[in-house]
Each structure stands twice: as structure tokens, then as C-alpha cells.
């Protein structure tokens, strides 16, 4: 299979994306049953097996089926790995945190594991709990014992998570470089920056000292951890100016006059997430750019995220206007 074929097929598949009008209708539904009925008329309908199917399972089933579909015709499967890798690392964090809790007499939370990862969750649980990490990919065989030793020294699950996150970004960058697709390397760097800026904003909001926050920032982005630390020591209003040489500047410029910090945090998170799609969007105009595979998966991911927001809002009778503001439209 060639990328010409794959990209053309993805273009045709894009017609099945749920549009903004559908989300407006979905949010307006009074009951979850009504919302699921609307969802049943879309591509997600095939996963609704009965009235009691949890919507999370429906969304996950569609995402997994999409990955399986793409596996059949994408020339280089590693493009899918770069999308699924964060899910694998997230699963590792869930298992490790469960293990830390178990050591302290707490309960395991394996129900939080995602089936979206490339590594089977059961295999991952057995490997981590049985301390047989040798066969695990992406450098996890080194990162997991390191995370364990960090936890044993500090008893901080957050510090252990940082070790895993650091390895995730290093592995993503290594894989992107191995794929030799320039747009993909830039995307990974952008993702690291987006993660660091998001963390900086959250930490600034709870008045964490920049020097303490330095340890929460990851290497591998276009902005170094030191750049992000310096950013934290500046007032929020000047972040747009300080980041004006990057694509993040515009996001903060647009939010400069907002006084409600909670709303700003919410909007920034949404914009940072959307920027991960925007940064790849130039691939849309290239008929055989491999980046289109990742772009499609990210758009599907965004659709799934929007669905979760809308359905949680309907199920819990939350404020519709608030839910509408949370919806992201990166594509």
C-alpha cells in the first residue's frame, strides 16, 4: 500500500466525522437515552449493543476499530505507534500507581486502563507486577525500575510519573526521528511544549515557586525547561509576548484580557490540545504526506473527546453553555 492510497482513503473516511451541528444537537438532548439514540444514527451506532452500553465503551470501541482499520492500509505501522504510545505510557502509570497504592494497603485501579495502547493491558500488568520488564518496548524496561526507585525514595507517585513521562517524550521523539518525517518531529516537539506550557499555567495558578516547578517540565521541545521556568516567573499577561516567537503566542494573546483564571485555564487547555492538530494541518494539502495518518487519528481523538464532554454533560444535567465552551474544533 502507498501513502497516495492511504491518504485518499482517509479523505473519504473524514466524511464520517461528526460535525459541529451534530454536537449542538447532542448537547441539547434532555436525557442520555435521547443522546445515545442520536449517537446510534452515526458511525458509533454499530457499538451500541443495548440500552445499557456505557458511552465510554462505545467511544473506545470506535477508536480501537479505527486503529485496526488503519493498521490494514497504512504503509508504516509505526505511525500508529506514535499515536498509541501515550496510551501505553498512561497504562504504565496507572499500573504503577495501583502498585504503589497496593503497597500502602490501597486498592488497585486497573479499571482505568485503556485498551487504546499498542501493548495488551493484561501483558502490561503481568510484566509490571511480575517485575519482568525486559521485553517491554520504548525504553520502558529501564524507565519502570527507575520510577520504582524514585517512588521508594520519595514516596511520591507524581515524581515516579515524571520519570515515565520523560521517557514517553524521549521515545516519541526517537520514533519520529526514525520515521524520518520532518512534520512528525516538529509535532512531537510541539506536543512537549504544549504539555510544559499547560503544566506551567496550572502550577502558576496554584502559586508554585518557578524553581520548584522546574522539575515538572520535560526536555525535547522547542522550548527548554529553563525557558518555561522563566515564563512562570513572568505575569500571565506577558506570556503571549514572551511566546510570540512560537505558535503558542497567539493563544495567550487572545486570552490576555480575560480575568476569570478558571475560564482561562480551561480555554488554554482546549487551545493547546487543538494546536496539536493545527500544527499538522498543512499536511491536508499534500496528497501523499504520511503526517495525514496522524492528523486523522488526532481528529478522531478530538471527536471522541468532544463526545465524552457532550455525553457527560447530558448524563449529569450540567450547564449546556459550559459544555459548549469545552468543545474543541481543531479541524
Amino acid at each position: 500500500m502507498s501513502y497516495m492510497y492511504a491518504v485518499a482513503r482517509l479523505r473519504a473516511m473524514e466524511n464520517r466525522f461528526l460535525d459541529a451541528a451534530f454536537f449542538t444537537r447532542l448537547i441539547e438532548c434532555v436525557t442520555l437515552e435521547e443522546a445515545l439514540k442520536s449517537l446510534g444514527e452515526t458511525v458509533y451506532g454499530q457499538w451500541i449493543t443495548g440500552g445499557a452500553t456505557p458511552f465510554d465503551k462505545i467511544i473506545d470501541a470506535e477508536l480501537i476499530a479505527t486503529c485496526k482499520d488503519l493498521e490494514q492500509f497504512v504503509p508504516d505501522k509505526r505511525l500508529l505507534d506514535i499515536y498509541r504510545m501515550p496510551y501505553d505510557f498512561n497504562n504504565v502509570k496507572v499500573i504503577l500507581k495501583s502498585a504503589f497504592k497496593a503497597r500502602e494497603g490501597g486498592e488497585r485501579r486497573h479499571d482505568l486502563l485503556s485498551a487504546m495502547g499498542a501493548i495488551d493491558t493484561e501483558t502490561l500488568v503481568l510484566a509490571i507486577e511480575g517485575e519482568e520488564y525486559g521485553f517491554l518496548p520504548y525504553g520502558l524496561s529501564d524507565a519502570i525500575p527507575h520510577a520504582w526507585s524514585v517512588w521508594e525514595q520519595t514516596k511520591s507517585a507524581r515524581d515516579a510519573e515524571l520519570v515515565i513521562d520523560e521517557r514517553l517524550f524521549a521515545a516519541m521523539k526517537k520514533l519520529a526521528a526514525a520515521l524520518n518525517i520532518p512534520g512528525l518531529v516538529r509535532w512531537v516537539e510541539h506536543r512537549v511544549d504544549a504539555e510544559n506550557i499547560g503544566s506551567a499555567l496550572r502550577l502558576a495558578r496554584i502559586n508554585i515557586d518557578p524553581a520548584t516547578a522546574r522539575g515538572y517540565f520535560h526536555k525535547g521541545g522547542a522550548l527548554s525547561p529553563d525557558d518555561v521556568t522563566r515564563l512562570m516567573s513572568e505575569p500571565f499577561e506577558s506570556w503571549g509576548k514572551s511566546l510570540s516567537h512560537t505558535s503558542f503566542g497567539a493563544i495567550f494573546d487572545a486570552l490576555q484580557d480575560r480575568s476569570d483564571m478558571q475560564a482561562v485555564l480551561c480555554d488554554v487547555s482546549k487551545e493547546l490540545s487543538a494546536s496539536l492538530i493545527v500544527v499538522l494541518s498543512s499536511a491536508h494539502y499534500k496528497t501523499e504526506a504520511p503526517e495525514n495518518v496522524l492528523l486523522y487519528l488526532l481528529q478522531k481523538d478530538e471527536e471522541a473527546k468532544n463526545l465524552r464532554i457532550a455525553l457527560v454533560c447530558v448524563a449529569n444535567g450540567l450547564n449546556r453553555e459550559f459544555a459548549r465552551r469545552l468543545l474543541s474544533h481543531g479541524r
Partner: protein
Amino acid sequence: MEYLGLTLALFGAALASLLAGIGSAVGIGIAGESAAGVMTEDPDKFGSCLILQALPGTQGIYGLLIMFFALNKLGLLGGGEAALVTWNQGLQILASCMPVAFVGWYSAIWQGKTSAASIQMIAKKPEAMGKAIILPAMVETYAVLALLSSILMLMGVQLG
């Protein structure tokens, strides 16, 4: 040396057919990959895809046409005796075949790429079929100009 002129002329005719044909095959192949991708998801687009895929095929036909022109000029069609061609005249026929050979070859490949992009366009916007045809058809202009050049040049060659 007696047949050098004829050989040069036949070489030109062969190149016209060969290069333009190769270009068309590559161009149709590129557009075909794109069409197959779209039709896997939406088989109803077969008609539109087929038209767009066929567009880069014209260069191959132009090459064949020039080859016939050249063979006719040389008297090789119809079973008669071949015309007497000096090396200079043979070279003139070879040169006459070059526009369609090279422009046909290159334009067919690029037309295939444009057709592939147009096929991706109609995958999302089927109502834009008219515009989708115009884009690769623009590339066709230069293949037609090359065909005209070759025909006019061949007509200008005087055989003794």
C-alpha cells in the same frame, strides 16, 4: 550508413510512443492509487474517479499518434517500400518527435498527481466534480501544445 536516416527517424517515432506511454502509465497509476483509496470507502464514486484517472492517459495516445504520423511519412504504413531518408532528414524527424515524447512523458506524471489530488477533493466534496476535472485538464494544455508542435514539425520535413 545507407539506413542511418531511417534508423534515426524510427528512433524518434519509438521515443514519442515510448516516453509518452511511460508517462501515461505512471500518471494513471498514481491517480489509480488515489481512486482505489477513495472507492474502498465509497464505491459510489467509481464514475467520477474513473474519469479523473483516465485523464493522464491521453499523452500515451498523442505519442502513438505522432508515431503513426512519422511511420506514414516514412512510407512504412500500408506495406509499401520505405522512403529514402538521408541522415539529415532522419534527424529532422527525430527532432520533430521530441516535443510529444518529453512533454508527454513529464506532463502525464504531473497530470496523474493533479488527478490524484482532485480525486481526494471529490472524496470530500463530490459536488466539486467540475472544478476537479479542470485542474488536471490545465496540465493537458501543454501536452496538446507539444502534440501540435510535433505535428507541425513533421509536416514541415521534406523527404526527397
